[in-house]
């Protein structure tokens, strides 16, 4: 089974590591709650306080 999320164009800045693995056709093992990306609006106005955003 699979879940697919579709974000509107330019709505999200997906984390780089996830995009890089995917571009090599490699899946990344993740858990619920791990960071996926940041809204483009926030990204364009300066990154949120990501120090608090642990991967796990």
């Amino acid at each position: 089974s699979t879940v697919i999320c579709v974000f509107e164009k330019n709505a999200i800045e997906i984390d780089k590591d996830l995009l890089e693995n995917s571009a090599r056709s490699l899946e990344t093992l993740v858990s619920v709650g791990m960071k996926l990306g940041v809204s483009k609006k926030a990204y364009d106005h300066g990154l949120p306080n990501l120090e608090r955003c642990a991967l796990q």
Partner: protein
Amino acid sequence: GNENSKESSSSSLERKESRRSRLKQKLRVERHHLRNRLRHLRSGTRNGNGNGSGSDSSSHKKLLDADHFAGIALLTLIRGEMKFRDKWLACVSFGEQTFRTQISDSTDKPVWNSEKKLLLEKNGPEVARISVFETNKLSSNKLIGYCEINLLEFLTRDLDSDYEIFDLLDPSTPNVVVGKIHISCSVEDPVETEKGFARRILSIVDYNGDGQLSFPEFSELINAFGNQVAVAKKEELFKEADLNGDGVVSLDELASLLAVQQEREPIMTCCPVCGEILEASDKLNNMIHLTLCFDEGTGNQVMTGGFLTDKEASYGWMFKLSEWAHFSSYDVGLNKGSSASHVLVFDRRTKRLVEELIDGKIVLSMRAIYQSKVGLGLVGKGAKEILQSISEKQGRKMNSLESAKDIPKFVEFFKDQINLADVKHPLEHFKTFNEFFVRELKPGVRPIACMEDDNVAICAADCRLTAFTCVDDSLRFWIKGRKFSIQGLLGQEISSSAFIDGTLVIFRLAPQDYHRFHVPVTGTVGKFVSIPGCLYTVNPIAINSKYCNVFTENKRVVTTISTAEFGKVAFVAIGATMVGSITFLKKTGDYVKKGDEFGYFSFGG
């Protein structure tokens, strides 16, 4: 009466003998014709060294013609001689593709004996690059040496032995020899290739494996190839091969006949594997194309392939086999021992590759089914019903009290991947396997990234994730189904204009994963749209098949979450083989916080 019978029997035998003689004669003529071409091809590659010396110079000149650098070359990486002990693998890069061997034992004299058929084309690539990598726990896939071989030169050289030894050069200091590699290369006999190919495709429909084909079996195969040959024509062909008129023919007999027939009037007008249209005027190349495609489609070759670079191929089992997830593992304890092969994904938490167990035979069968038009064609219209049926059956089984006894075995099999400490209830709590399958986790065991900041989206499931900034990227790197589109995925009822060319994130759940999915962004849940469909497997074998459109054909439920930070986010839960039951725990209009439980998948149709 007896006399008449004898006469009749005798004349019948004579007729059959006569037919047999005619057929043999025809085959002899056709073989002669093909062998002449083979000699032509071989002389073109074996003797055309460019010197044009001797009385045969006109022939040499002709042989040098690039037109004759064509056919199937069988390249074998035999063994290496390295300067230290380690585990070794070798890659062959030719044209746009790279293939790799298995990994050798720890030795300084690795033996691979890996074969690969390469397509030689006029005006095509001539130089093959061989790269040898050492691989161990400390130094994974480090390039140690390489050599480049001009296959045209190699095949035109007269060799005393069946193989040639090449120096392996240090990639950083190309003048330094770091080892040697033994390689053989020959041009395959087109007649044998043709017969072998016909034999193999015929064997697909030899369901009982007795080496004989009935007319319905033969007919079904021709239909699967999409050929509109009239029934009468098929019967005619079949009868021609059925020399004793007993209604069945051996694979060899039919293969010979088909090889000849393909020469006269092609039966296959498009490649059954890749769908490419075959030019009627270029029969030899068509056969070569079909053979190579078929080899790739069935994973029949010793070397794995399909990589773009030698570096990628050195990580081939990561890049390719990581796509080979398996539904077989739902059958508890099936994949153990020697039948298990490996699958890798990149673990984001540990930043390491994670190994998963997989049954090699299942992988091959799934490839055969999902990645070839033949496979899907043969499964035919009954596929959807079969998948639905086994999913419903599995659902009933997993909801039975008896199924609870499978839980400990399942946990044991995936003991490295299921953390029972995370599970909310002890194993005894679960009365059926399905209850365990949709197990809840203890609060807090999945921390939510930046919980207080809704600008940060989170992963919606414990899963294998792929993400693409646009649909084009997803089609380039992952989804190969020809009919995939956002509109097709979301269906008619969800307005998709805002999502066209949007960002796509795919969360694929494996059998051992926690099967509840969560809300990735904070917002308000829109309407739920159930889209009926079939239950193809969602594993990458199917996703990577251009013949299978899993995401747009499978049963699914689509909804949206309206957010202040991301606009609308479409959320699609897709059922799959055996796990086709989708349950949502929220309803339209609910305000959800990222990380909230949203629903779960369970066994059923």
